[in-house]
């Protein structure tokens, strides 16, 4: 019988937790979202082609830009994301960069001038301070570790969309590729003069 009572108690705890969760969802002001509403197409730049490299038409793309092709800058990226060349062009144009990797990785090295903003820090004082420094209509490039999924960038993008940021882009390659291409980087220690 004791076993039955224990199981009944466990079910009661789960039921109470469910009711508390439902109540919590009703009083929470912002709805929980799971991803960006849509992936913003990349901004065309003067020194880049108008369209994203399509893996299926990769050969044609390579031929078209044969003279300028750089395996690092023009590495193929998932649909709707910026190549390294496009991201660097936006960096040169003064776009805001957001690093959505872990804080320790950001402290170790990040795109020069990039702010640190992740889903974990978004609703904190640190996150709010970062967002106040970025106008909602400014071009923003978000990056993480890169790759097909790049979930951290998509999550940050979704939260920024919810906060009415409009000109959002995801860099299809990660910070390591940026650094490998000898593009401008900095560490928190460089920027603040303090050890993180």
């Amino acid at each position, binding site marked *: *019988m*004791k076993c*039955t*009572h*224990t*199981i*009944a*108690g*466990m079910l*009661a*705890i*789960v039921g*109470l*937790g*469910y009711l*508390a*969760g*439902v109540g*919590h*969802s009703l009083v*929470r002001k*912002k709805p*929980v*979202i*799971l*991803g960006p509403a849509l992936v913003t197409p990349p901004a065309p730049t003067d020194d880049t082609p108008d369209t994203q490299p399509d893996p299926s038409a990769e050969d044609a793309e390579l031929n078209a830009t044969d003279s300028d092709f750089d395996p690092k800058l023009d590495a193929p990226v998932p649909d709707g994301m910026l190549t390294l060349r496009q991201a660097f062009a936006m960096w040169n144009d003064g776009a805001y960069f957001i690093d959505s990797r*872990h804080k320790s990785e950001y402290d170790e090295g990040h795109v020069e001038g990039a702010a640190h903003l*992740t*889903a*974990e*820090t*978004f*609703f904190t004082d640190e996150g709010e301070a970062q967002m106040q420094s970025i106008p909602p209509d400014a071009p923003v490039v978000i990056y993480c*570790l890169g*790759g*097909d*999924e790049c*979930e951290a960038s998509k*999550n940050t993008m979704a*939260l920024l969309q919810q906060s009415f940021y409009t000109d959002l882009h995801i860099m299809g390659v990660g910070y390591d590729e940026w650094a490998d291409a000898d593009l401008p980087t900095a560490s928190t220690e460089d920027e603040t003069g303090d050890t993180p």
Partner: protein
Amino acid sequence: MSSPQRSPLNWIESVVLQMPLRVGLGGLFVYAAFMKLGNIQAFAFAIKGFKVVDADKHGHLIISAAYTMPWIEMIAGVLLVLGIWTRAASLTIALMLVFFIAALLHVIYTPGIDADCSCFGDMNLVCSATVGWCQVNRDLVMLLPAIYLIWRGGGILSLDSLFKPSSDANSETQGSKAGSTLDDDGIRG
């Protein structure tokens, strides 16, 4: 008439094992729940990152879990710390830990998933943020006291025990006429 649970050995077990394990394990779960409730959105992203269910098809399940799981942790943790319904709270926590371990193993053994644990919100307790064997071992270590508490109950220094003598007395004086007693979890049966 003294209860058999009040022997010196039971006192020692309660002081040395049951109470520290209750407070430690329950406190950890309360802390984990508090950190998750502080940022439900990040926890929802973390659940999505585990890819146990397809976020496009079953996003509502992920959002439900993001709201419900921290509250279950919170309620079970508080009950465990106080020593109310100790066995039921321990069973809840044990089942959650088994579920967490299964989810962690899913991430570890599925190629291409690079998920963050988010087990304690954005705090990294013992292990790093990225899912790995460290988190599995940590959950296995937490599973041991949960199983022990399911077996032995909350001990003398729990509120379960505080309410038990009177029910024992009732059951002893009223015998089978009452037809109901309170077990260690204080649930009338």
